[in-house]
């Protein structure tokens, strides 16, 4: 169901420009702080604390937000999507290929840096590094599915995505227990915690719940995105 041409053009559109350098900024900050903390931090649990909080509530969601909303959203906004849709390629294949590109890019600029940072902190074969990598992969997949869907549903996908991250995951997720079952952040740290076993990760779901819910959210949001793209309408001159 993936279309290699769509995948290639999307990767080129994102990586082939200077703005791709911006994506390097966040991982660079993550690694710099990790190295600094390794040299000066006193607390023995700083890696799980720092990489859990900064990595899973800032680096991964924001990287996925920027990438996930732009792989398809940018083309919808400027109208160039018409060239892609004026071909017999199925809309599901378009959505899945865009999603795959976003996941690959988020792994590159979010998940791998997180893994490298954990490796620097505690060694690359350690439980923390592997756990954070597993959690980061879950985040790359589920967040992008959500953000790709938002970019098809609304032209204000970044704003809506930010609201979801700040209000739903950030605020309500900490205040209301039930929200955690519907929080991609919780799916990722819970998967990470199942391997890393670090209470500083602040994980509240079992591994099974995290995986089942993560998969369900991914499949459901991608299905909505494909459905909406099949009914893609160009804005007419009368609007």
């Amino acid at each position: 169901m993936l279309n290699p041409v769509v995948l290639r053009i999307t990767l080129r559109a994102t990586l082939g420009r200077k703005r791709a350098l911006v994506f390097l900024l966040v991982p660079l900050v993550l690694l710099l702080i990790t190295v600094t903390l390794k040299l000066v931090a006193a607390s023995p649990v700083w890696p799980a604390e720092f990489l859990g909080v900064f990595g899973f509530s800032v680096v991964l969601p924001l990287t996925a937000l920027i990438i996930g909303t732009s792989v398809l959203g940018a083309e919808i906004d400027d109208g160039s999507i018409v060239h892609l849709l004026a071909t017999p390629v199925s809309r599901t294949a378009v959505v899945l290929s865009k999603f795959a590109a976003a996941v690959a890019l988020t792994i590159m600029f979010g998940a791998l840096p997180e893994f490298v940072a954990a490796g620097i902190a505690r060694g690359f074969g350690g439980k923390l590094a592997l756990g954070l990598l597993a959690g980061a992969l879950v985040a790359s997949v589920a967040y992008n599915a959500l953000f790709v869907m938002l970019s098809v549903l609304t032209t204000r996908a970044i704003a809506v995505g930010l609201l979801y991250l700040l209000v739903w995951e950030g605020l309500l997720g900490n205040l209301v227990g039930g929200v955690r079952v519907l929080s991609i952040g919780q799916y990722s740290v819970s998967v990470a915690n199942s391997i890393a076993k670090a209470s500083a990760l602040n994980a509240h779901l079992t591994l099974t719940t995290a995986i089942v819910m993560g998969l369900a959210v991914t499949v459901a949001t991608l299905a909505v995105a494909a459905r909406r793209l099949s009914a893609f309408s160009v804005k007419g001159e009368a609007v």
Partner: protein
Amino acid sequence: MSGGCLIELRRVSRWYGNVVAVNDITMTIGPGITGLLGPNGAGKTTLLNLMAGFLEPSRGELTVAGAPSWRNPRSFEVLGLVPERDSVYAFLTGADFVASTARLHRLPDPGAAAQRAIEIVDMAATQDRRIATYSKGMRQRIKVAAALVHDPQVLLLDEPFNGMDPRQRLEMMDLLERMAGQGRTILFSSHILEEVERMSGTIQVIVGGRLAASGDFRAIRRLMTSRPHVFLVRTSADRALGAALIGRPAVTGVELTQRGLSVRTSDFGAFSRELAGLCRDGGIRLHELLPSDESLESVFSYLVTT
């Protein structure tokens, strides 16, 4: 394939909220070249988007080659679309863009198909430049190449002459005529009647979302040249010139206004020839000659009422 490449609309309407963009249009467009003409905002783009499956008809039935195009990407197996908007993947070279489109169509030999399409639009020399560096006319042509790459039976073009210089415009018209000559169904939109003066074929005139007129290009062209024209003439001796003009058969009315002479003529060609002669013979200096009713709306509304 004859009969297989018709665009058929039966009582199609499309509205946005309470704005009606396309109002109860029934038409069949067959092989050959058809111009979709009308002033800006008449509903031409909406109509083309309906045909291409990028809008759902609010009411009515629309088929391309026998199948509805809405929610049916497979209609692009027989359909090619050149959108009006200029946004393309500017970071690709022209050759990359067309070849990628060929691959999206799953053509057996995408490279060869791309080369063929690029040669048709005469872009071989610049195909390796990035689209970002192209002029408006070049972008237009590379978009046509991409739309042609799968050899579609039906080609829709939204304002293809926009931003082209007269030579490019002639070449594009030749290209469209040639493709129409091969039995394809070519439909293009334009809001400038003069742009399409040389074309042969049929036209559909859309005004205010309705099909206002349809027919042969030549018939419409005759109407255009024989319609009454009004000119504003400022001279050194308006009254003397007015008296001379009213004696001419081509002139149907003269009025003295504060800004000069308002002259109505039924024969644009004869009037413009005679005016110069009259001025010379009477020793009158001609300061200004302005067409005062050349707005598109007046041309179209004249066509509609005829």
